[in-house]
C-alpha cells in the first residue's frame, strides 16, 4: 500500500512527521509575504480550480494538462521525507504524491532534453507578496533531467492524506528531498523540457548564495550562515540543533548523480 515507498525512501530509520499545524503554519512562499506566517494568512486568496499544467519544450506530447487528467493517470503514494530549508531549519513531512518521472513520461521526454524547468503561478491579484520585487516573479526552478527522473523526486498533491494546503503549494508542487527546500517549487503551472540549464529564481536574485544544484550539504556553508547544523521545527524555545546530513540523509540514493563533481563549486 501507501506506506511501502515511504519506508524504502527513508533508508530504514523511522522518521517522526511534524504535526499538520507545524507543517502548514511555518512556510516560505514569498508570493504571499516574506513572514513565515504570511502564506497561511494570505494563500486562501489563490484560486486553484480549475488548474492545468502546461508541459512544453522537448516533449512528444506538449500541451495543457488539466490537474484532474494528470491525477487520473498517476498512482498516488505516501512519502515521508525530511525537508531541509536553506535557512537551517527542518521538518519531516508526510507527502502524498506521484513520481515526477511518471508525469514526464506521460508527456514523452525527447532524447535531446537535458533539463527540466518549472514555473509557479503568478497572479498579483491573488498573491499580495508579488507586489514587491522581493524576487523576479514568476518563481522559476530547474533540475537536471536525471535529478528529475530520480525515483525520490515527486510531485506532491497532499499532506497527511489531505489535499495540500495552498500555503504549501496547492494544488501540486515539486518535492526534491535531498535539496534545500526552495528547489521544491510550489503551485506549478508550467514544466518545460530544455537542452540547457534553466534559470532559477534564487540563483538569479543572488548567485553567490544560491547555486543551481543547492543540494543539502553540511560542508558548504551559506555565505551568511553555517549549514552544518539545523533546527527541527516543533522543539520549542529550548530546541537543540542537530547535525545536518549530507544530501539530507539521502546520499545512498542520490550521491551517484554527482559522482566526480566538485560540490564546493557546484553548490
Amino acid at each position, binding site marked *: 500500500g501507501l506506506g511501502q515507498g515511504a519506508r524504502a525512501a527513508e533508508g530504514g530509520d523511522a522518521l517522526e512527521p511534524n504535526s499538520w499545524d507545524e507543517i502548514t*503554519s511555518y512556510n516560505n512562499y514569498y508570493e504571499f509575504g516574506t513572514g513565515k506566517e504570511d502564506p497561511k494568512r494570505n494563500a486562501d486568496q489563490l484560486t486553484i480550480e480549475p488548474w492545468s499544467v502546461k508541459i512544453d519544450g522537448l516533449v512528444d506530447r506538449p500541451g495543457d494538462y488539466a490537474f484532474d487528467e494528470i491525477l487520473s493517470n498517476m498512482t498516488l503514494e505516501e512519502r515521508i521525507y525530511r525537508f531541509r530549508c536553506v535557512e537551517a531549519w527542518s521538518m519531516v513531512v508526510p507527502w502524498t504524491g506521484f513520481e515526477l518521472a511518471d508525469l514526464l513520461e506521460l508527456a514523452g521526454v525527447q532524447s535531446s532534453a537535458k533539463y527540466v524547468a518549472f514555473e509557479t503561478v503568478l497572479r498579483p491579484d491573488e498573491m499580495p507578496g508579488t507586489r*514587491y520585487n522581493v*524576487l523576479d516573479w514568476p518563481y522559476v526552478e530547474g533540475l537536471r533531467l536525471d535529478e528529475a527522473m530520480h525515483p525520490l523526486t515527486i510531485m506532491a498533491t497532499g499532506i497527511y492524506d489531505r489535499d495540500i494546503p495552498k500555503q504549501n503549494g496547492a494544488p501540486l508542487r515539486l518535492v526534491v528531498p535531498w535539496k534545500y527546500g526552495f528547489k521544491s517549487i510550489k503551485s506549478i503551472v508550467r514544466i518545460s523540457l530544455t537542452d540547457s540549464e534553466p534559470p532559477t529564481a534564487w540563483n538569479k536574485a543572488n548567485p553567490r548564495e544560491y547555486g543551481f544544484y543547492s543540494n543539502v550539504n553540511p560542508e558548504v556553508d551559506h555565505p551568511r550562515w553555517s549549514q552544518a547544523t539545523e*533546527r527541527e521545527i516543533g522543539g520549542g524555545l529550548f530546541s537543540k540543533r542537530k547535525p545536518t546530513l549530507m544530501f539530507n540523509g539521502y546520499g545512498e540514493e542520490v550521491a551517484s548523480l554527482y559522482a566526480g563533481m566538485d560540490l564546493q563549486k557546484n553548490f
Partner: protein
Amino acid sequence: MLAKRINGALRHVPAWPLYIVAVVPPVWLLWQGLTGGLGVEPIKALEHELGELALQLLIAGLCITPLRRFAGVNLLRYRRAVGLIAFFYVVLHLLVWLVLDVQILSQIWADIIKRPYITVGMAAFVLLIPLAATSNNASIRKLGGKRWRQLHKLVYAAALLGGVHFLMLVKGFQIEPLIYLAIIVGLLALRLPLATGARQRA
C-alpha cells in the same frame, strides 16, 4: 502651541517608569515563546522581535534632538532611559542568539568573524557598551560635558550599523529594513551643519 502643551504635560512625568515599562515586552515575548504565541519556531521569532525593538528604540533616541530643535518638543529628560533600554534589548537579542539560536561556542566566534552581517551587528553592540557604561551623572561629571557629548556621538554609528545589520540578514529584496535604514540616515542627516544652520547650537 502643541509643543508647549506637550512640554507642559510632561513637566512632572519622571523618566524612571520607563525602566519598569521596558521589562514588559521581553517578559511578554518570552511568555509567548514558551506558550506557542510566537509560532512553531519561537527562537528566531524571539531573536528578531528583540532586535527590531532595539532598533526602534535607537531610532526613538535619535528623534529626541531633532524633535526639540525643529518642533520645540523637549523629551531630553527621557533620552538616557531610551538609550539604556535600547542597550538592554540589544543584550537580550544577543543572548537569544548565543544561547538559544547558535548554541555552539566555537561556531559563535566563527560566525562573528566570518559572517559580515554578524560582524556588523557585533560592532554596533561594542560601540554601545561605553555609551551604556557612561549613561550616568557621575560619568558626565568625570568626563566633562563636551567630551561626554563627543563620546555619545558613537550612537550615530551604532544605529547605522544596526540598520545595515538588518538589511544584510534578509533574503531577497525586502522593503522593511530599507525603511529602517532610510529613517536612520534621515535622522543623522538632520544633524549635519547644513540642516542645523547655526553651528554654535550643536
